[in-house]
C-alpha cells in the first residue's frame, strides 16, 4: 500500500514509525527493509517504555500521543492513515483527531480478544474513513454509527501483499537468524507465534503449555518471540529459560522477525502455524496453510476453513496439530482477499472529500 501511495501522482507520502518497530528486540529488520525498499521515513518516535507490564503499556500510549502531536504539527498532513488495533495506534489517532486531521483507519470492525478488541472499536469511533478488510467488518463499522459512504471493503492489504510476494524462503535465511536448532524447512515444520493476551493473567502458563505441546508433537518448529504487549516478560522468560537449559537438540529455532516477504513465504511454506497471531487467520486463509489457533486472542475474527480453534489445553493443542499435519494444505479462501486493494485505497485517499466533524450516522 505504501508503494501505491508513493507512486500516486496526487499523493505525497509521509511515514511515521513508532512502537516496537524501533526497538531492536522487536522490529529492527522490518525498519531496515522498509528503508532499503526506498521508503523515506520522515519521523521515528522512540516511545516504547520498558517493563512489559500494563503500566508500561499505558504510559507508552501517553508518550506516543505527546510525540505524535509535535510530529503531526510539523508534517501537517491532510490525512493520517493508521492500521489495526494496537494501543500506540489509538494514541496516534487521538493526536490526529484532536488536531482536526482526518484519520483513515485500516482493519476496523474486526473481532478479537485482548485489549485490542476495545482499542480497535475506539479507533473506529474517532476515525473518518474506514478501509475494512472483509464484509462482516463493514457491517459492524456501519452499525457502530459510521456513515456507509466512508466505509470501504477493498480487502486486506496484508493478504494482498501475501498474494503478490514471490519470495522463496530458504534454509539459509531462517538459520542465519535467532538461536536454537538448525531447522530444515524443506521438510515438514511448524511455525509458532504466540503473543500475550493483555486481558488475561496466565500468559506464562499458556506459553508453557504450547511449548510442551509442540515438543511432544515431535516436529521441528520455528518460534517467533512474542510482541511487546503486557505479559511479554513472562512469556519471553519461559522461552529463554527453556533455551538456556537445552540449547540444542530440541527441534526449535527461536527468531525475532523476518523481512515481510520472507515472513509471507514462511507462512506459505510451513506445514502448520500454531499460536494466536492474526496472520494465521488472514494470510494463512489465502495460502490455505493449516492453523492451530490457541486461546481467546483471535476470538470472533472471521476465519476460513484452515483454522482449528483450541483452548490453552496441551492435549487439545497436540491433537489439533496432529490433525492439521495429516490434513495438509487447504484450498485458498478469499474472505480477506480482493485484487487491487492498495490501488483502491490510494485512489480513495487521493479523491475522497475529507471532513473533520463527525456525526453519529443513524442507519
Amino acid at each position, binding site marked *: 500500500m505504501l508503494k501505491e501511495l508513493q507512486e500516486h501522482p496526487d499523493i505525497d507520502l509521509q511515514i511515521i514509525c513508532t512502537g516496537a518497530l524501533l526497538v531492536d528486540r522487536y522490529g529492527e529488520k522490518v525498519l531496515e527493509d522498509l528503508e532499503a525498499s526506498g521508503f523515506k521515513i520522515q519521523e521515528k518516535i522512540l516511545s516504547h517504555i520498558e517493563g512489559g507490564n500494563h503500566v508500561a503499556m499505558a504510559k507508552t500510549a501517553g508518550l506516543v500521543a505527546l510525540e505524535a502531536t509535535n510530529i503531526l504539527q510539523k508534517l501537517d498532513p491532510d490525512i493520517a492513515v493508521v492500521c489495526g488495533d494496537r494501543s500506540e495506534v489509538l494514541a496516534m489517532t487521538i493526536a490526529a483527531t484532536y488536531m482536526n486531521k482526518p484519520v483513515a483507519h485500516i482493519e476496523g470492525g474486526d473481532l478479537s480478544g485482548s485489549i485490542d478488541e476495545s482499542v480497535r472499536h475506539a479507533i473506529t*469511533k474517532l476515525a473518518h474513513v474506514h478501509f475494512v478488510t472483509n464484509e462482516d467488518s463493514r457491517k459492524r463499522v456501519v452499525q457502530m454509527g459510521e456513515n456507509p459512504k466512508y466505509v470501504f471493503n477493498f480487502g486486506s492489504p496484508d493478504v494482498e501483499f501475501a498474494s503478490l510476494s514471490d519470495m522463496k524462503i530458504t534454509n539459509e535465511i531462517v538459520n542465519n537468524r535467532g538461536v536454537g536448532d538448525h531447522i530444515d524447512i524443506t521438510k515438514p515444520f511448524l511455525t509458532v507465534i504466540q503473543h500475550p493476551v493483555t486481558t488475561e493473567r496466565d500468559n506464562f502458563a499458556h506459553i508453557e503449555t504450547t511449548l510442551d505441546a509442540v515438543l511432544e508433537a515431535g516436529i521441528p518448529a520455528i518460534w517467533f518471540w512474542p510482541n511487546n504487549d503486557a505479559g511479554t516478560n513472562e512469556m519471553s522468560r519461559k522461552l529463554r529459560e527453556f533455551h538456556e537449559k537445552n540449547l540444542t537438540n530440541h527441534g526449535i529455532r527461536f527468531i525475532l522477525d523476518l523481512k515481510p516477504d520472507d515472513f509471507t513465504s514462511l507462512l506459505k511454506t510451513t506445514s502448520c502455524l500454531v499460536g494466536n497471531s492474526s496472520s494465521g487467520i488472514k494470510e494463512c486463509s489465502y495460502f490455505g496453510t493449516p492453523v492451530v489457533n490457541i486461546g481467546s486472542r483471535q476470538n470472533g475474527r472471521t476465519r476460513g476453513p484452515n483454522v482449528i480453534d483450541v483452548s490453552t489445553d496441551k492435549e487439545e493443542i497436540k491433537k489439533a496439530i496432529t490433525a492439521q499435519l495429516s490434513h495438509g494444505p487447504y484450498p485458498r479462501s478469499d474472505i480477506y482477499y480482493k485484487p487491487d486493494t492498495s490501488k483502491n485505497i490510494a485512489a480513495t485517499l487521493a479523491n475522497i472529500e475529507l471532513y473533520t466533524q463527525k456525526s453519529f450516522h443513524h442507519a
Partner: protein
Amino acid sequence: MVRKICAITANRADFSRIETILEAVKKHPDLDLQLVVLGSHLLEKTGHTVQEIIKRGFIPDQTIQMELEGSNPVSMTKSVGLAMIELATALDRLKPDVVVAPVDRFESLAMGIAPALMNIHVAHVQGGEVTGTIDESIRHALTKMSHLHFVATEKSRERVIKMGELEETVFNVGCPGTDLLLKIPPLSREKTIWRLNDEIVRGDKKFDPSKPYFLLIQHPVTTEFGSSGDQIKETMEALKNIGQQAIVLWPNIDAGSDDISKILRRYTDKEIDHFTALALKHIPHDLFTNTLRNASCLVGNSSTGMREACYFGTPVVNIGTRQSGRERGRNVVDAPNDRKQIEDAIRFQLGHGAYPVEHIYGDGTAGEKTAEILATIKLPNIQKKITY
C-alpha cells in the same frame, strides 16, 4: 469485599456530572471512594475548582497537573498524553476495582484508556449522547473502551447498545447533574443578583437587581478552530443590540478559548452603548443554578441549555453546531453564528417567556442508582466483546 471506586474529574462541568455519584459512593457501606483530580480544576484561570471539591467534603487521593498552556489543538493533544502517563502511575498506586470516567472532555479519553490498558474496569458516565465538536468522537470512543455505561436518556441507552455494548451493562439512571439541580433551594432574581454582586463580581461595575438579564456561556468548537473569535463577536453584537445586561462566563479551555477571551475582553466589564456585560470566572453551583433559573434567556452553546434549562423552563438560544443532535426540551431555539439571526431568536424567546418544565435527563436519583449498581453488579468480563 469492599469495592474501590476511583472517580476522575477534569473540570467544573464534568464534576457536576458525577458529584452525586461520589456522594452516594462515599456513603455506601460496600464501596470505597477514591478521587483523582486533574485538568482545569487545578488552574487559577478556571477558578481553581479543586478547592470547591474539597469544601464539599471530597479529599483528592491524587491531583495531577497536566494541562499545557496554549489552548490550541497541539496543547490539548499533549495534555491528554500527559494525563495518560500520569494516570498510569496513579492507578497503579490506587489499584481501584472500577474507574468512573465522566462524559466527553478531551481529558476523559485518557481516563478511559489508561485503566482499560491496565485491566481495570471503566464505568463511563453519560455515553451515547450526540453533539458537535471533537467531544462527539471522544464520547463514542470512550464508550468502546468502557465496561459499564451510566447513560442519562433513553435515546443514549439505545445508541450505546447499537454501538455493540452488552445491554446488561447499560443503565439509564438519568443525569447526576439533575440530582444536584433539583436539590438546590430557589432564590428570587433580585436575591440571585445581590449574591452575584456580593460574592462574585470583582470590579466597581455591578449588575442591576431590578432588571432582567441574559446568561451567556459560549465555548469554542474545536473542529471549527480559528472561527471561535468571529463566532463570539456575532453573539456579543446581537446582545449589545438588544441591550439587556448580560452575565458572561469565561469559556472552557478547549482549543480556541483564547480567541473567545480576547473578544470578550473588548465587550465586558464596561458599559458600551447602554449595554453592560460582566465576565465572571466561576459561580458556585447553587448560585449558578439560580442564575440559570432566573435568566430571561440562556444564550450560547453550553450543554446546560440542553440538559438543565428544561427543568426551570428557562428559554435558550443555542448557537452553532456544538450541541447539534443533543436531546433538548421545547425551550430551545437554534441559531447559526450570525448576529441578525441570533438577535431574532433572542427577541423571540424574550417575547415567549418561561416554558413549561420538562424532565428529560432523569428524576434526580442518578447518583444513588449508580452507586447501588456499582456496589452490587457482578463486574462484566474485563475482556470486552462487541455484540454483533
